[in-house]
């Protein structure tokens, strides 16, 4: 059974209520949506490590 489409003024610009896409690799089965979120989290983590701290003012005392 598929989801009832949201219609009218409340319809979302991107409708994700469609059958999900899944990747299989041995015992691993993961949805593309979860994979995207995981990649974003890893990217944010790496960026937090590598991006320099902002240098607005030097307040070293």
């Amino acid at each position, binding site marked *: 059974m598929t*989801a009832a489409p949201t219609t009218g003024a409340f319809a979302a610009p991107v409708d994700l*209520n*469609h059958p999900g896409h899944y990747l299989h690799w041995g*015992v691993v089965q993961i949805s593309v949506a979860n994979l995207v979120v995981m990649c974003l989290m890893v990217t944010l983590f790496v960026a937090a490590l590598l991006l320099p701290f902002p240098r607005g003012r030097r307040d070293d005392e």
Partner: protein
Amino acid sequence: MKSAQVPESDAFPTRRYDLVKEFTIALAVTVLLSAGLAGLFSSPNVPPTTLASWSTAAPNDFTATAVAELAGTSTSAQYGPPYNHVPGAGQKIGPLGLQRAAGVRIPVDPAEDFVLRPLRQAPEQPEVTAALAQWNAASADQQQSWSSAYADALNKAPDGDPAKAAPGDYGPVPVLTARLLTLARAGSLDGQLLSPGRFYQTAYTKPMLFLADGLYLSDRATEQHLTGAQWGMMNETGNYPGQAWLWLSTFWYQIDPFKSSKNADAEIWAIMAVLSLALILVPFIPGIRSVPRWTRVHRLVWRDYYRTRR
């Protein structure tokens, strides 16, 4: 002494840090992101599975499940604690019967709660009242014999259609289950199975157990990749991301010996409890507590400081 090697805190360089400002910025960014993403993607919008939708979409499955409830052969009837007393039922960790130790906390008698009581509560036609009286007057063996015979007949009928079941001695079972199907399709059974005596009707245990005894809910879950064998704990309906952080809990269900174990839930619960405890105790576990020092990630974060120190 080790403490003598650590400089006093005022010997380190310092910088101004506004905690309130950082909190305010983080809160504003989180609110904007949440509102923006909700506006862009909305939320999962799959119609709920109810007794009404089940009995309308799969009436034969509904009838077969109602017969199994009367026969006492459904999953709910055989589940054991916390719903009912069934000898030998319940998951264990080794010799430790956790489920049995917790006891029967939410008593459920599937035949009575899912089938007979809803029929008694509704104003019924004479033939249904007579069928209920016939059922109640019969011995437990006779009830079992009627319901088992009807379950077998439905199994052999094309598509499990009650109308095509071979004639036999099924007692009042066909009348009772046919009336229950009518009640369910009208939507009244959903309300009747909610726990009475409360202002807010939020105890969905009984309708959920009844639904889970049939094949319809399981088929819908499989279709949406939500079953345990499909890493379902991590998934959401449609193309939405789910609970990715539960990957380790659901991972165990995919491999032996857990995937074929009758005690998988209890065993995996124990494994996750031990691993969670180990995570809490990381600062006290020799070797593991030194991983940050070996990986030296902090030197990457504070590379400016360590560069100037060289």
